[in-house]
């Protein structure tokens, strides 16, 4: 059998259901791996040995009594530390909230736990979910398990690193301007930014209200589907929450890609690092061999996304943090303080203009989806950077390069699935994103599954 730490939930679930594998044994194994490996990775802020073992024991007792809940029962899950967890420190990756202990759990996490998931711990993140490098001066900078001299990305860098290092079976993330997809690409895992409102974001720290989404991260598309089944659903406490019929995202994953029309916005072909460009061309060839019909498509409105992204994220995030910036500015790392203060210096006309641009982009995307089923591009245009000495400038630079590729999905509210695209010339992962119409997660997962079946990614360390 493969190393337990790298098995997917879809592989583990039948072993647990048939009592060949004990959830306690599995949880202990992962906690041991965390104790041994994580000091070099910093993917966790708060590992939860006692909580996890207690939940695992409860799961085991239920299963032994014939009360198997389903494929998440007994599966160890890491929870990003901007999801509230009742009675457990929830820091938002920030010194500001180092002592915050919520009295409730975010519904997006609660539902996974109610389905039998085991909470392994709270995962590291770029401070207040507003950076792309995973640098964290308070809780330790998350490092890329493929090479610890390189960044894991952010803001859900703890989630992606834990998955890549075999320190969690599943992980939650959040995505405001790329925070699920960017670290997924850098660490070679799968990450789904969901349709705005599909998963409740109540009882999560906000970054920018009109863009924030919660979503699953995993080592396979099947596992993303299992998580999405657990996380999606209406929540009256979230004003953005959508009323949608219940879906079973794990069904029909095998439908394949034949006849799927994929449009590649020309916008996504400009400014790519050479390795990314080469791997994208290889991927296009493979997708064609799977039966996809691929064409280039021009969506001029995407060119407004950089301005809209900076203005909206900066404006909303600096509003949320305004009082803390006044009273505790020294609690912010310099990169975030600079980003937030820059946002505070943008003005109302810029913010509203950005929202006008956003509507233009929504209309343009709707039109594009009349012509094609899926849009495709690299998740980010760059190869994963090594850590630079000037980490402040580096975070601002990575945002400047990558936000234009990730934020269009947030601005238009559509789902985006980042999948591993292959290793670059340095042996580090790259990613590409499939972008679908609103609530097209099922189709995105089908396409991702077809891709994964011919380009499986090997995890070992």
């Amino acid at each position, binding site marked *: 059998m493969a190393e337990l730490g790298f098995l997917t939930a879809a592989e583990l679930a039948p072993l647990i259901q048939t009592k060949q594998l004990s959830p306690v044994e599995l949880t202990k194994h992962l906690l041991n791996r965390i104790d041994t490996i994580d000091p070099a990775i910093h993917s966790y802020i708060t590992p939860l040995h006692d909580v996890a073992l207690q939940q695992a024991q409860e799961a085991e007792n239920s299963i032994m009594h014939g009360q198997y809940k389903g494929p998440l029962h007994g599966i160890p899950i890491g929870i990003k530390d901007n999801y509230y967890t009742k009675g457990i420190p929830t820091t938002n990756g920030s010194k500001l909230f180092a002592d915050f202990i919520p009295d409730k759990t975010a519904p997006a996490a609660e539902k996974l736990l109610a389905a039998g998931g085991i909470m392994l711990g709270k995962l590291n993140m770029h401070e207040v979910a507003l950076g792309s490098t995973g640098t964290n001066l308070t809780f330790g900078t998350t490092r890329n398990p493929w090479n610890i001299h390189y960044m894991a990305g952010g803001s859900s860098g703890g989630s992606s690193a834990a998955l890549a290092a075999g320190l969690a079976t599943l992980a939650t993330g959040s995505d405001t301007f790329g925070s699920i997809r960017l670290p997924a690409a850098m660490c070679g895992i799968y990450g789904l930014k969901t349709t705005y409102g599909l998963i409740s974001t109540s009882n999560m720290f906000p970054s920018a*209200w009109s863009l924030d989404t919660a979503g699953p991260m995993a080592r396979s598309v099947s596992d993303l589907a299992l998580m999405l089944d657990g996380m999606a659903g209406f929540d009256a406490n979230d004003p953005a929450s959508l009323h949608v019929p219940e879906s079973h995202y794990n069904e029909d994953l095998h439908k394949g890609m034949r006849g799927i029309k994929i449009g590649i916005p020309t916008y996504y072909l400009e400014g790519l690092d050479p390795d990314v460009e080469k791997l994208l061309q290889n991927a296009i060839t493979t997708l064609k061999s799977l039966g996809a019909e691929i064409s280039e498509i021009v969506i001029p409105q995407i060119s407004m996304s950089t301005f809209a992204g900076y203005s909206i994220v900066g404006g909303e995030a600096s509003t949320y943090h305004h009082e803390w910036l006044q009273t505790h500015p020294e609690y912010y790392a310099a990169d975030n303080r*600079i*980003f937030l*203060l820059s946002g505070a210096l*943008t003005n109302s006309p*810029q913010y*509203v203009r950005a929202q*006008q641009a956003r*509507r233009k982009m929504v209309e343009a995307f709707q039109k594009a989806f009349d012509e094609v089923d899926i849009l495709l591009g690299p998740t980010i245009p760059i190869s994963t950077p090594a850590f630079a000495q000037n980490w402040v400038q580096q975070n601002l630079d990575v945002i400047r390069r990558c936000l234009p590729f990730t934020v269009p999905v947030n601005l238009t509210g559509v789902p985006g699935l980042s999948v591993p695209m292959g290793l670059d010339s340095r042996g580090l992962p790259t990613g590409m994103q499939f972008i679908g119409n609103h609530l097209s997660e099922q189709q995105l997962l089908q396409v991702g599954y077809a891709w994964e079946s011919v380009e499986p990614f090997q995890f070992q360390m």
Partner: protein
Amino acid sequence: MYDATFIKQGLYLQGLPVFEDDVPYIQNTLVTINQAQEPLKSFPDLNQTVPITVVDKRLMLWLN
């Protein structure tokens, strides 16, 4: 356009702190945002577009 004095005054008026070392980075970020406005000129009807706003269902329906 975004000189250090403008930035410091802008922050001061909002009661926000000024860290001298931050100022050049803030300048660069504001320049990035300013330059990113350039593509908007290709859409002369932009101002006829109703902005997407943080308006939720409770503004249109009286819900508890």
